[in-house]
Every structure is written in structure tokens, then in C-alpha cells.
């Protein structure tokens, strides 16, 4: 009896905390939709048709649902990457570059390893190897920024952005040069197709959704577990909340900063690896334009909580996926989605505006997401 009562109140408590945590993001989305609608009217479109198109295009059929899941997969990984860094008090704007590095190396292992070895590998070795190498390279790419932050104080915001451009230039160099697909018909900067043994199988026949999606959900759970149930997670969160206190408590802050950044980069690298092994079967220049920035919005919208990130990733995936249908119905350009997402981000980041519009009182708690130049 007693325990039943307690569990009952616990469910209530969890429900209340979820509704409280979800309230501001939901209102932010609502506000963005309204403002977006006004902009659609200004440019001479029909907002109702546009939004209907978006929903139809993203959830209207099995195929649409599968495509939404396909879009959501890299968003979940990249969103988790940014969210994990936020938890550790770091702002990773460089998911884009880490993703590209992960993709390039997965593709390299995918198409070149059998050639180098001279024999083909079984899928249970080749596929994991391609994914892990991509993931690790993403981790190293971001880890460099972590080392710079820990030992020189170089701010991670600018450094991750610089690493983005370095990654972009280097991959352009590689994809136009040594890694270019040499087939006679090809003029695009892209790698050859990866071997069959490095490809992720589809879950259902005839639908593009692949096991990478399941892996994404699994990794989201893993990150939740890491953050809340392990010592490392505790250290990451403590350093994120107050590095001075963490130092005083005996946590190795430098090591934690580097690890956080490397883990974040590994997640972003995974996003790239999974896109290559699960969907495109090669890396092509410019396939990832904008993932890095979308990931920031997703992490903020999901309040850096793994479950929130998964939900936010679905929303963004649905918007991207439904955009084509929307364009077909209303002739509004797909770029409208980028603007809608920017508006959502604006209202999520500036929750004070949402609170002001809907007269919601703040509880006075302020979450520190980033710090100034001092670090």
C-alpha cells in the first residue's frame, strides 16, 4: 500500500517534471510556427497548405515515416554530440567538421581496405571497423580542440569553427585528389562506393531506414546512462556546472575537458560514419552542409537531455523530410525550413521571450551553457 502510493507520486513527479521541461520548448515551437506563418503570408504563400504539406510529407505514409527516420539518424548523433559538450560546459560548434572527418575515414575504410588487404572481409568485421574508425577520427578531430582548451585556454567556440573550415578544405582536397572516384563517368568530388561488406543492412525490405537508426536510439540511451549513472558522467556534469568546484573536489578538470570534447567528436563522427555506411555508401562533398548548426538547435531544443535530443531530432528530421512535399504543394522554397528552424532556436535559446509572451514565471534557475573568453 505504502509503496504503491510512493510509486504513484513518483510517476506523478516524473510526469510533472517532463511537462515542465517540455513546456518552454513546445511553446517555442508554437511561436516559431506562428511567426513562420506570418513570414509565409508576407512572401505570398499559404501557411496552412505549407504546414499541411510538411506534415503529410513527413508522417503521411510508411515511406514518409521511414524517410523521417533516415533524416533523424544523423541528427540524433550530432544533437547528442552538442548536448554532451553542453553538459560538460563546452560549446561544440564543430559537429559539422567532425562529421565530415568521420565520413571521410569511414568511406576510406569502406572502399580501400579490401584493396589494401587483397581479400574481402566479412561484414561483421568490415562494417564495425569502418564505423569505429570514423568515430575515432571524429573524436581525435574534436579532441585537438579539447587539448587546446585544457592546456592553453584557446576558446573552443572559435577553434571548433576553425576546425570546421580546416576539415572542409582538407576533405575537398582529398575528394578532388587521391580519394576521388576514378570511374570514367564521374565528375563530382566523391569517393568510390564502399564495399558491400561495409554497408549497413536495411531494417525493412524496400524502405531506406537502416539499422543505424536503431543504433542512434541505443547510443542516446547509452549517453543518458553515461551522464547519469557513471563516475565519468558525474565528472563531466560537475566540470560543466562549476570547473573551480570540480577542481577543488579533486576532479581532473583538464582530463575531463579533453574527454568531453573527444566524446562529443566521436558522436559527431558517428553521424558521418552512419551516413556513409547506412545511406550514401560513399562520401560526397557538401552532403553535410548545415548538420552542425542544426545539431546546436536540436541540443538546445532538447535541453541537452538525450530523450529531448531524440525528440528534437525527430522534429527537425520531419521538417527536412516534409519540405519537399511542402515545396511541391506551395512552391515555397525548401530553404523556408532553415528559417523556421532558426526561429525555433531563437525562441528556445531566448526562453525569456517565450516566458514573457506567455506570462510564465521563471523558477529563478539559470543554466550556464557557455562561458566567456576567460574559460
Amino acid at each position, binding site marked *: 500500500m505504502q509503496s504503491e502510493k510512493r510509486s504513484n507520486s513518483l510517476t506523478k513527479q516524473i510526469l510533472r517534471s517532463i511537462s515542465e521541461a517540455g513546456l518552454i520548448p513546445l511553446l517555442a515551437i508554437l511561436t516559431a510556427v506562428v511567426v513562420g506563418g506570418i513570414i509565409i503570408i508576407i*512572401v*505570398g504563400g499559404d501557411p496552412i497548405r505549407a504546414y499541411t504539406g510538411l506534415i503529410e510529407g513527413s508522417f503521411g505514409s510508411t515511406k514518409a515515416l521511414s524517410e523521417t527516420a533516415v533524416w533523424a539518424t544523423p541528427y540524433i548523433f550530432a544533437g547528442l554530440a552538442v548536448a554532451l559538450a553542453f553538459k560538460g560546459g563546452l*560549446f561544440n*560548434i564543430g559537429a559539422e567538421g567532425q562529421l565530415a572527418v568521420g565520413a571521410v575515414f569511414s568511406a576510406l575504410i569502406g572502399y580501400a581496405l579490401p584493396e589494401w588487404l587483397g581479400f574481402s572481409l566479412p561484414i561483421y568485421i568490415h562494417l564495425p571497423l569502418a564505423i569505429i574508425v570514423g568515430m575515432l577520427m571524429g573524436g581525435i578531430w574534436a579532441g585537438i580542440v579539447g587539448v*587546446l582548451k585544457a592546456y*592553453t*585556454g*584557446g*576558446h573552443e*567556440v*572559435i*577553434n571548433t*569553427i*576553425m*576546425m*570546421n*573550415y*580546416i576539415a572542409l*578544405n*582538407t576533405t*575537398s*582536397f582529398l575528394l*578532388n585528389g587521391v580519394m576521388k572516384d576514378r570511374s570514367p563517368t564521374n565528375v563530382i568530388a566523391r569517393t568510390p562506393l564502399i564495399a558491400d561488406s561495409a554497408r549497413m543492412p536495411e531494417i525493412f525490405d524496400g524502405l531506406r531506414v537502416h539499422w543505424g537508426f536503431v543504433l542512434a536510439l541505443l547510443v542516446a540511451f547509452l549517453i543518458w546512462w553515461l551522464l547519469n549513472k557513471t563516475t565519468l558522467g558525474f565528472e563531466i556534469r560537475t566540470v560543466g556546472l562549476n570547473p573551480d568546484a570540480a577542481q577543488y573536489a579533486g576532479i581532473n578538470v583538464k582530463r575531463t575537458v579533453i574527454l568531453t570534447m573527444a566524446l562529443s567528436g566521436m558522436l559527431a563522427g558517428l553521424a558521418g560514419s552512419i551516413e556513409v555506411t547506412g545511406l550514401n555508401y560513399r562520401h560526397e562533398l557538401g552532403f553535410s552542409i*548545415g548538420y552542425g*548548426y542544426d545539431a*546546436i*538547435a536540436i541540443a*538546445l531544443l532538447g535541453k541537452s537531455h538525450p530523450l529531448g535530443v531524440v525528440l528534437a531530432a525527430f522534429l527537425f528530421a520531419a521538417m527536412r523530410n516534409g519540405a519537399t512535399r511542402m515545396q511541391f504543394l506551395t*512552391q*515555397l*522554397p*525548401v*530553404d*523556408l525550413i*532553415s*528559417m*523556421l*528552424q*532558426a*526561429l525555433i*532556436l*531563437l525562441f528556445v*535559446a*531566448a526562453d*525569456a*521571450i517565450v516566458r*514573457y509572451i506567455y506570462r510564465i514565471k521563471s523558477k529563478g534557475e539559470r543554466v*550556464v*551553457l*557557455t*562561458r*566567456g*573568453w*576567460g574559460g
Partner: protein
Amino acid sequence: MDWKRFGFIALVIIVLFSVVVMIGKSKQPPLLIITSMLATTIAVATPLALGALSGVFCERAGVVNIGIEGMMLASAFFGWLGGIYMFNIYDFGNALSITLAVLFAILTGGLMALLLAVLSVTFKVDQIIGGTVINILAVGLTGFLNRQLFFGKGSVFGGSVPGSPGVLPTLHIPITELFAPICGTSATCLQNVQAINRVFDQKPIAIGAILLVFISHYILFNTRWGLRTRAVGEHPKAADTVGINVYKMRYANVIIGGLFAGLAGAYFTIESVPSFEPLLTNGRGFISLAAMIFGNWTPIGAWAAALVFGSSQAMLINMQIFRDVIPPQWAFLQESYIVGLTPYILTMFILTGIIGKTTPPAADGVPYEK
């Protein structure tokens, strides 16, 4: 500006120039190479210097501005768009359209900065997130409007980009005319004077940017306004106690910063080339932030740092001219992807603080609560 930093800047610029001179001297006389590279350096450093000034004003008042990139991008787009509207729809002449276009760009920068000020000063949003919002908003807004207005169904311009009013003219500084009599009949002397003249023949925003650097330096360090701005950025509580309105000073300086970023945006589409493409700022807003940090939050220091980045870009441009005479061991310098990395690696190197530690304003990035 300490000597270590200044020496580093001079060293990098000299090294970059020497490389180009060494490679190109079989094709052109060194003086010609140096002057043409200097001219390019000053021109391409313009948006970086203006962006850095934008950062200096915002951050001296205590607001971190990571949104310079977005402000530049939006200004580049709306200035260019305004020029096209004035030229094609309202039938204004070239000169008037271009002038108005520059004003539109500056105004856009100011408006974007107003948004940053509202977010960071009034609503006390985390300032780096606020700046990121500006960046993402600018990408979304310019991408959408660019497609919708020019290529959308029933768009104003019916599926194509109409003629733009062109770009700002180059201003001729009459050095040749002044010094030609000294040369007398010597043709090489006259050629040299003309080569030197090329360095000073810049476009209006480039010349304006240099003037603005020194004006800003004077304002920040020698006027009452500057003192108040710095007070608000260093110790807002103390400033408030002696009767300075912290919020008002922060709003004003962030908006001034936005106007600078707007002028930087105008450089891209109204001074450099008369066209717009999505994402054309290509990270230069962030590089100007690095220039600001390396210049230790002073206008002149930031300008010097911007010149370093400018010279690395000038090297890239000049390498294309000397394509055919590059010796094989230097061939990698042709690869624009590799040489193009220089400013980014330089930025990261500078941020390590190896070349002198920098100190941001004490209250930089901290929202002020009364």
C-alpha cells in the same frame, strides 16, 4: 600593443610576402609584386578589420559578439538586395542605388545587433547562444529570401537575378601626379611611383575602414564615451554606482558594433563583387573575432591582426598569377585548399596565447543584473 605581438605580425607578413616575391621574381619585378600584394592585403583585410571593430565595441561594453558572421552575411544580402530594388524597380541611377545599398547594409547590421542587444542585455540570454542564434537566423533568412525572391514562383524578379547597379568605384589618390615631376625623365622611376600609387588606390569602404580604425581608437581611449563604454565592460556595478546607465551604454555600443559589421557586409556585395551567394562570408566573421582577440580588444591591434589574415589571402590570390613559374618543390602552394588553411591555422595558433596572453574586458559575456 606589445612588441612581441607586433613583431609576430610583422614577421608573418614579411615571410608571406617573401615567398611570393621569391616565386614571382622571374616574372615581375619585386617592387611590383610587393605593391600589388600590399594593395590586395589592404583590400581583403577590410571586412576583417571592420568585423573586428564590431567585436571591439560590443565586447568593450561587455557583450560577447559571436554573431558578427551572421550580421555580415545578412548585411551583404540586404544591402545588395536593396541596391537591386533601387536600381531595377525604382529606376534610381547607378550612383544613387549603390550609395543607398551601402546604407541598407549598414542599417541591416544595426538591426541584427539590436536583436543581439535585446537578447543579451534585456533578456539576459547566454551571449554566445545569442550570437549563434544570429548566425543561424542569418543563414536561414538569406537562403530563403534569395531563393524565394529571385527563383520562387511568382517572385518579383521572375526566375532570374536582374542586373545590379555594380560596385563602388576605386578612388584615385594622386600620388603619381604629385611625385612625377621629381622623377623627371626617368621611366623606371615613374613606373615605381605608379606601382606605389596602386597601394593607395583603394575603394571607399577599404579607405573608410582604415580611417574608422583610428577614429575608433581615439573614441575608445580618449573620449568620455569611450571611458564609459570601457567602464561598463570592466565593472558595470561601479559604473552604475556613479550614474552611468549600463543598459543604455551596452545597447548603444552593440548597435554601433552592428553598424560596423553592416559596413563589412557591404564590402562583399557592394564593393568587392556585385553578386550574392548563400554563405558567402565563409567564416570571415569568426576570423575577425580572432583578430579582435589577438589585437587585445584594441582597434589598432585588431587591424594589424586583420592585415596578417589579409596577407595570407593575398598570397593565395597572387599564387594564381604565378601559376606557371612555380618551381616543382613549391607546387603545393598552388593548391588553394592547402594554402587556404593558413588563416584558420593561424587563428588557432594565435588563440593558444603563445604569442602573448590577451585579457578580455573583465565583465565580457556577463549579463548585468541590477
